[in-house]
């Protein structure tokens, strides 16, 4: 009985360990770095872990030694040496070295950018994003997605609308808090193209857990092409369905909050939708830009995302929702 309990206990521990380790990999993990800053942080983490293991092992080993291996009286001279050397000098040197190593990284993460500036404002509960290429006089506005080029350092200027949030893409670098009325900055130098996930890392309200985004890392050539496309006005509706959707978009007043560049819709409240359909996600990293998710979102915003500013358009008929979704799906 005890044997089988111990066996199932071991199996449980093994399972928990596997699940925990699985959580370390993937597109939202500081242990799978995809950029220079995240690599530094990854190294820092490993060094800290090794340092902590050494300190823990040495101190506990010493404790074991003096209580179990040689529990007899020690000459005062030896005992003093052991206490001062092992209990004061050794931990101070080790922790001091780790601190110096950790602090030496900070200037790198505040290094100047290479030209591109991305401004991110945390809203309730989504991300307003502006791209300011070197020399730009007006931004290219988008939302809920960050795209960055590899091989260059991009400057991120961060602030918040109403509450305190925190910007964190674990695969690319460290966290930076976002405050209303105060700009914070960080720089990132991604290295490996791919799609990673960012998440608000400061509890900010009922939909904090639903405030995420995709971070798409592109080669410089791909990034330049994407930015050019992003700067262009929206595609006009191409099908009768999408045209009806655009009329509904106007008559339901969607343009009061949402901008679609190249149209009369110029609202400033919600996310810019000019190229919504080219984004990786909908609703700030929680859904996909598909017909089904779009209709679901428009009709049930506040069920899906508590206290989000956008009211649920639950009076629209299924056919109307489909038309609206068709229009939005065409905003490539």
């Amino acid at each position, binding site marked *: 009985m005890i044997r089988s309990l111990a066996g199932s206990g071991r199996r449980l521990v093994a399972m928990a360990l596997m699940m925990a380790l699985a959580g370390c990999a993937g597109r939202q993990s500081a242990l799978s770095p995809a950029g220079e800053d995240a690599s530094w942080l990854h190294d820092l983490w490993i060094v800290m872990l090794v340092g902590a293991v050494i300190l823990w092992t040495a101190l506990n080993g010493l404790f074991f030694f003096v209580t179990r291996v040689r529990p007899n009286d020690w000459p005062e001279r030896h005992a003093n040496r052991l206490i001062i050397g092992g209990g004061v000098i050794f931990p101070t040197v080790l922790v001091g070295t780790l601190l110096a190593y950790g602090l030496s990284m900070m200037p790198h993460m505040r290094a100047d950018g290479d030209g591109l500036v991305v401004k991110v404002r945390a809203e309730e509960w989504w991300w307003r994003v502006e791209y300011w290429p070197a020399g730009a006089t007006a931004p290219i506005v988008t939302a809920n997605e960050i795209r960055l080029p590899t091989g260059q350092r991009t400057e991120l200027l961060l602030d918040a*609308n109403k509450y305190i949030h925190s910007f964190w893409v674990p695969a690319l670098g460290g966290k930076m808090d976002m405050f209303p009325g105060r700009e914070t900055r960080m720089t990132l130098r991604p290295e490996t193209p791919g799609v990673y996930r960012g998440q608000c890392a400061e509890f900010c309200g009922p939909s904090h857990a639903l405030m995420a985004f995709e971070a798409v890392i592109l080669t410089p050539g791909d990034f330049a092409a994407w930015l050019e496309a992003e700067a262009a006005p929206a595609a006009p509706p191409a099908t009768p369905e999408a045209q009806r959707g655009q009329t509904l978009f*106007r*008559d*339901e*007043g*969607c*343009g*009061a*909050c949402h901008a679609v560049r190249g149209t*009369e*819709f*110029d*609202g*400033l*409240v919600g996310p810019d939708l000019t190229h919504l359909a080219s984004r990786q996600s909908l609703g700030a990293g929680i859904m996909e830009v598909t017909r089904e998710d779009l209709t679901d979102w428009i009709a049930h915003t506040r069920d899906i995302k508590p206290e989000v*500013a*956008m*009211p*649920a358009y*639950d*009076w629209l008929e299924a056919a109307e929702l489909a038309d609206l979704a068709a229009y939005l799906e065409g905003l490539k």
Partner: protein
Amino acid sequence: MTLRGILTVVAVLAGLGAAGGGAVVAFGLYNTSAHSGHWAVTEWALHTTFENAVALRAPAESEVPDLSDPALIELGARHYDGACAMCHASPGEMAPATIAWMEPEPPQVEQAVEPWTAAEMHWIVHEGVKMSGMPGWPAAAREDEVWAVVAFLQAVQQGMNADGYAALTGGESYCSGCHDGGNSRIPRLDILSPPYIEESLHAYRLGTRASGIMAQAATVMSPDRYAAFAQRVGTTAPRPATPNPPPVAAQGRGDVPSCLSCHGAGNDNPDIPTLNGQSRDYLATQLWLWRDGVRGGGERAPLMTAAAQGLTDAEIDILADYFSALP
């Protein structure tokens, strides 16, 4: 007498009292006839309780707004005419004979207002009076509306006579008497679409749009007649242009959607009201109500509740001025 003896006497008296009270309820011994009236002492106890309850709970005098606006007095008088005069009579008139046999008899309006301050009248009109036949305000959230009636009652205190009352409450019909466009606190209907008018009447009737005044009006009219009424008074003309809008109306702000995306020319949705030329004070009041979360309406009401959250007092005035001045 011993403690035991005292307790026995108390227990016997309590038992007799309970039996007597139970008999009054169970055998109909108390005469509930309005003809029989109250004893003078009962009358005194009830009325003194009422007076003291009002004095304890009435709002502070500092909360009384300016009640001298003729538009406010007219609105109050017209609501009084439709909802209150049936019992309290109009100035210089008598209530119907049936009303005089209520117990207590509702005082004629000049006597009714005589002992009270404006703040006390607000409390009485808003709360009503239990066991007297005086109802509470039909929309409890709309304390603001009650001031119109208080403004009228104060005018009565100050000597409004039958002629003055008739001049305020005349009109071709029940609806147009208020809505003919001359009163800045009452909305014009001729610029609104029939579907919007009809939906609003249903909302008033159901209480999803809170208004004691319009709840009365919408329940006086049969819902079967709403559609035809809306067709008769509303308009199907396209939304007119809105030149030179203030910035907050044109594009909005980070926390304010633009007004004209819905209420401007080019939006053909008949469920959204046109604001051009709408009564100024009515617009301002509605924006306050939207911002405070008190204003409901049809199915799109959550849109305006969300839209008004970021408006400042100054912007509400700017918007009310702008839209009311448009042709």
